[in-house]
């Protein structure tokens, strides 16, 4: 019997046993689809987190109080900002921005909003890659010098405070003082860093009117200093220079610990990489389990049908099938199921990944390795257990196969 006849026989047999065929294929489909969907979601989340962090800039360093070592005081002051702004102290730092902030009730017109109000230096928006404005502009050096009562607000803050009017030129009241809105930030797609409903006023104004904390030595305290290294490769040098400068400024003796801490975006990236790796591993193990469940499904169907199939082989041999006719038929049956199931599984997994892309707002990445791995595994299970009855029975005497129970 030629291979084409064997192929037709295989198709005939698959069609005659629709339920068995569908169930077997389902095992392959579930396994393949689960692996592809889950791993591509994992990869997508990782890629999106990484790119968001990189969008903020990997050459940024954030300096803040080390509360483990500060007796409850803020340790960073405006004097430190001045010291770090001097290139002679920190040649590897190109610019420095400082912030001080807290939650405030912000009233605009008849609306009010509880949100973070931060005092920031004029370069804050540039340093943090938030230098795009929906309308108006950022804060100026003159605003900072004159402690101007002006505010830049996030796009969400603008819509909730001024739902029906153009926000620029309007005033908002914070803690009984009114500020003129001079800028509305463009919406940031990023889920990290500053949110879209924050409100920003000049640092000097905030220190004078809202946040009056002082350091242990009586200096005006800031919460955070953001330093931009001249390049990503200079971040280590910048960290060393900032550390040295601040230790000197704070008069920290040789053996004592820092009363401040420095985080780099690279650190953050690493932290998130660890988290997303865990996520991917978690999704991967769920996918692995699905694959296993799919595999066991296939195995069960095949083993349950061994008796029937062995008898079938007995009948075929009794009427003259050769061993190789039987093997060819079963091999082709399994191949058709595995290939068909694999393709459907890829399609289904890919569709789920696309839906997840939309729902989770991440770009899922379906990579070839995942497809190969899952399809390979499922196909192998399908093939092995599909051929198993044939492999067992094709060598039996016809009567043994006919009598098999």
């Amino acid at each position, binding site marked *: *019997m030629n291979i084409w006849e064997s192929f037709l*026989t295989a198709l005939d047999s698959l069609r005659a046993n629709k339920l068995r065929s569908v169930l077997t294929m389902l095992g392959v489909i579930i396994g393949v689809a689960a692996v592809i969907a889950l791993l591509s979601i994992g990869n997508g989340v990782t890629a999106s987190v990484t790119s968001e962090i990189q969008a903020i800039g990997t050459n940024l360093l954030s300096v803040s109080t080390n509360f483990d070592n500060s007796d409850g005081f803020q340790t960073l002051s405006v004097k430190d900002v001045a010291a770090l702004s001097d290139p002679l102290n920190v040649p590897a730092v190109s610019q420095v921005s400082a912030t001080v902030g807290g939650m405030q009730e912000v009233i605009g017109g008849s609306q009010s909003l509880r949100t973070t109000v931060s005092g920031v230096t004029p370069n804050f928006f540039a340093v943090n890659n938030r230098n795009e404005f929906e309308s108006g502009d950022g804060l100026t050096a003159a605003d900072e010098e004159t402690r101007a009562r002006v505010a830049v607000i996030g796009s969400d803050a603008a819509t909730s405070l001024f739902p029906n009017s153009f926000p620029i030129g309007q005033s908002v009241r914070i803690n009984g003082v009114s500020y003129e809105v001079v800028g509305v930030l463009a919406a940031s797609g990023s889920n990290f860093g500053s949110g879209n409903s924050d409100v920003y006023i000049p640092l000097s104004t905030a220190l004078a009117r809202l946040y009056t904390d002082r350091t242990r030595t009586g200096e005006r305290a800031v919460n955070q200093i953001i330093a931009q290294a001249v390049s990503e490769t200079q971040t280590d040098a910048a960290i060393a220079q900032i550390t040295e400068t601040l230790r000197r400024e704070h008069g920290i003796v040789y053996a004592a610990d820092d009363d401040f801490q420095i985080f780099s975006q690279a650190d953050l990236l690493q932290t998130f990489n660890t988290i997303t790796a865990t996520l991917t591993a978690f999704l991967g193990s769920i996918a692995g389990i699905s694959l296993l469940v799919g595999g066991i499904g296939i195995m069960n169907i095949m083993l349950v049908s061994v008796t029937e199939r062995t008898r079938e082989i007995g009948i*075929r041999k009794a*009427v*003259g099938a*050769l061993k190789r006719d039987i093997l060819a038929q079963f091999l082709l049956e399994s191949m058709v199921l595995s290939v068909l199931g694999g393709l459907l599984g890829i399609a289904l997994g890919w569709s789920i990944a696309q839906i997840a892309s939309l729902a989770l707002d991440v770009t899922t990445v379906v990579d070839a390795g995942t497809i190969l791995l899952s399809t390979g595994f499922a196909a192998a299970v399908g093939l092995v257990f599909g051929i198993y009855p044939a492999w067992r029975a094709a060598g039996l005497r016809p*009567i043994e196969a006919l009598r098999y129970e």
Partner: protein
Amino acid sequence: MIQMKNITKTYHMGTQEVHALRGVDLQVEKGEFVAIMGPSGSGKSTLMNVIGCLDAPTGGTYILDDVDVSQMSDNQQARVRNQRIGFVFQQFNLLARTTALKQVALPLMYGGLNRTERMKRARMALEAVGLGDRMDHKPDELSGGQQQRVAIARALATNPSIILADEPTGALDTITGEEILGIFKQLNSQGITIVVITHDPDVAAVAQRTIWIRDGVIQEHHG
């Protein structure tokens, strides 16, 4: 022509040995209608399986149409089953969920006939057993007698020289059994050798000769 000399068949079940055939001498001429009778467990089915090359004997020589079966390869035996022998089993042994036409065409497919020829011959065989109007029925859509007729059609589709039937009427009522027997008689009249295993004296009465078997040996021949 079937020639058997001192055929034995021993089954090994763990340490126990079951001697199903203990030296059978048998000769069946071309065109004969032979019934094999004997008590349950006497070795009738075992003998038929050996005759049909479904099973290999433990000892003795079996010559089928002047060829020693023990010298044949598996594939050659498959060829013999395909071309020269038709089987009818007590349990029908039809493929599940497969139409009557495809069941009957099955041996023709393994015989290498092309599709059109296969279908033509299968139709003819089904018509010959009176199932011309049930070609597209699957086994579970047929009565027992109809299923057995499908099996007979499958056995005769290849134009075999021998038809072996193991209690072909055992699962059927008397009237259906008689119809089936009628088909065998007719096939025999066309020159096909028929060997029927049966417990039913009425079946044996139709045969030209009855062979009695007891405890794996042939007892006597009735002419």
